[in-house]
């Protein structure tokens, strides 16, 4: 067919056409504008309306930023400096910077300790978030980080975090000793050994031994408190959520029903209620004189709350996997733990990433709810000590805008990371 075609209309090119410019209006900005902004009369009208709205928004907002006062001792003097002009009183941020970040009771001479813990956080999470880039050895630091961070932020005797760590190691050793015989024996034996170790070391008087200045939990505050609750609760609620999701799918009816009851109960209760329980009601049930740390109570409540949600997200991911994946794992002779860890969870978690990030971002923002139970986190600081002070009474926009900005930066970072991670794990339809 093509042969006859070539024979009947034979043609050989004798000169090549040089490259030339496209006609004006068919490339570059003009073409783009015509295609995207003014493709029809209605579209052009909408474009103009949007531009006008943008103009009013920016022209109102920009002077407030540009004329902002960054150096003044109080709102009164700030207004004097502005002298009737439109402008923000950002001086409150510089003047109360430390309070916004650390709360108003944390000793100012040891601000470097939480700051250092914050910097080390990046070192600790880097190998977890970017496992391909950073060497695996840093993971040892990641494992030690919670104890280092505790020591830096709370201070006190270094023996406390060391005992906590040793208890975990003892528990792990007992677990690995007995797990070959039976998983249950290893698991409960490990927990019992760790608890026994902590109970025994509880009798050792550690006060002042190798100690740095101790800061009690009620003195924690500011954005530090939000970061602390957010990081701890997110990193705890993911493993608990996985365990709950697997428990809910378990063949063992008692475990299954415990998990279902827990998840359904926690999801049916507002977080505020749980926080009130943590701060007020729990004290009635504990023996008098028990000192059960408030932050620890709040961490337990938020973690329980978030892990119930994460469990449901992961259950969705597990349900999305075809049964054949379980069967293939089974047919190769993998046991339950191997099958879950190597085949099922990597795929289920990948599917669940958007949902897990959704819960994590929500959880991080929900840490501001602790201001309701009179803890002075970032929002608690703004609503309480700062806005109530005579110097800064009435500086709402600047303070709450700053709080919003801090939360936005962190949450947007999490969101961007998760999208990057999803692209990294994309292996099915290349």
């Amino acid at each position: 067919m093509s042969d006859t075609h070539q024979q009947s209309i034979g043609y050989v090119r004798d000169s090549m056409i040089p490259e030339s410019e496209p006609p004006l209006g068919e490339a570059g900005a003009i073409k783009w504008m015509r295609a995207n902004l003014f493709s029809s009369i209605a579209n052009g009208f909408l474009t103009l309306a949007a531009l006008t709205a943008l103009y009013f928004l920016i022209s109102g907002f920009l002077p407030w930023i540009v004329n902002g006062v960054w150096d003044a001792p109080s709102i009164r003097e700030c207004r004097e400096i502005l002298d009737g002009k439109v402008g923000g009183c950002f001086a409150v941020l510089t003047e109360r910077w430390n309070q916004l970040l650390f709360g108003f009771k944390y000793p100012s001479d040891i601000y470097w300790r939480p700051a250092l813990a914050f910097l080390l956080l990046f070192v600790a999470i880097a190998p977890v978030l970017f496992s391909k880039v950073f060497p695996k050895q840093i993971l040892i630091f990641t494992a030690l980080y919670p104890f280092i961070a505790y020591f830096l932020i709370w201070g006190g005797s270094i023996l406390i975090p060391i005992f906590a760590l040793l208890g975990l190691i003892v528990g792990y050793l007992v677990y690995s000793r007995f797990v070959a015989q039976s998983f249950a024996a290893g698991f409960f034996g490990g927990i019992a050994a760790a608890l026994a170790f902590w109970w025994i070391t509880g009798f050792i008087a550690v006060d002042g031994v190798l100690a740095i200045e101790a800061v009690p939990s009620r003195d924690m505050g500011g954005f530090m408190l939000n970061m602390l609750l957010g990081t701890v609760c997110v990193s705890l609620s993911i493993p608990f959520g996985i365990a709950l999701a697997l428990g809910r799918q378990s063949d063992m009816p008692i475990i299954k029903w415990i998990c279902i009851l827990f998840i359904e109960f926690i999801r049916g209760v507002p977080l505020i209620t749980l926080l009130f329980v943590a701060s007020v009601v729990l004290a009635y049930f504990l023996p008098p004189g028990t000192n059960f740390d408030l932050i620890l109570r709040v961490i337990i409540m938020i973690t329980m709350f978030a892990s119930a949600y994460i469990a449901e997200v992961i259950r969705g991911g597990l349900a999305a996997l075809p049964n054949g994946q379980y069967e293939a794992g089974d047919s190769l002779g993998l046991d339950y733990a191997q099958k879950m860890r190597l085949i099922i969870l990597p795929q289920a978690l990948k599917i669940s990433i958007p949902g897990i990030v959704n819960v994590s971002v929500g959880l991080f923002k929900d840490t501001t709810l602790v201001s309701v139970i009179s803890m002075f986190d970032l929002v608690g600081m703004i609503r309480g000590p700062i806005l109530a002070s005579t110097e800064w009474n009435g500086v709402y926009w600047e303070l709450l805008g700053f709080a919003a900005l801090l939360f936005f930066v962190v949450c947007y970072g999490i969101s961007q990371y998760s999208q990057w991670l999803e692209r990294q794990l994309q292996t099915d339809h290349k």
Partner: protein
Amino acid sequence: MAEAAKLQVSDEVAVSIENMNKWYGTFHVLRDIDLTVHRGERIVIAGPSGSGKSTLIRCINALEEHQKGKITVDGTVLSSDLKNIDRIRSEVGMVFQHFNLFPHLTILENCTLAPIWVRKTPKKEAEELAMHFLTKVKIPDQANKYPGQLSGGQQQRVAIARSLCMQPRIMLFDEPTSALDPEMIKEVLDTMVQLAEEGMTMLCVTHEMGFARQVANRVIFMDAGQIVEQNEPEEFFLNPQHERTKLFLSQILGH
């Protein structure tokens, strides 16, 4: 061919199923199954859909639980003991209709996973083994790709290689070519023929009657959860005895 095949069969019993029954709820799927498979035998199981043929071979590696009767695999009696089941599964390879490769792992990782974690083979050794079997199924060059990048026939050959990496003594095939395009069926069947010629004990649920004729030394025909007829392939195809077998063969060979 059939004569040569018979010679390779030993007296050693690989799988023995005695009076096995299975129910799905109240539905009686498998009824009084008795089957002895000798080492080196290639058995093709045919039958209409819903006749219980897949369920039968899935009982052999305990993907399905049987409620009555006794299954012995390689001398080990199948019980509900998990360790027992895992041991049998690591000796019995299985190839599925829909391949069931692990999409988040590369071809090589698919093949090395079970040897590394179940057999505790060192990673390097497991990779050499995997490359050996990938070469055998003629796709060593795809080792670092992901399953989603391969054609159906290639994926099924990877699935065969993945099972072989556990160096099983028995292979189960559950309709391995039913989900493939006609052109790809041949490459998978060729691989299976090659395996058969090496003396692998095989139980294949398949509708590929040409394959049955070429390599099987026994064809089993099932209907309504029972073994209706079994015979050597020549006899089975030329001289079926049972009415249901005659009807089935006329349906599938009639066009």
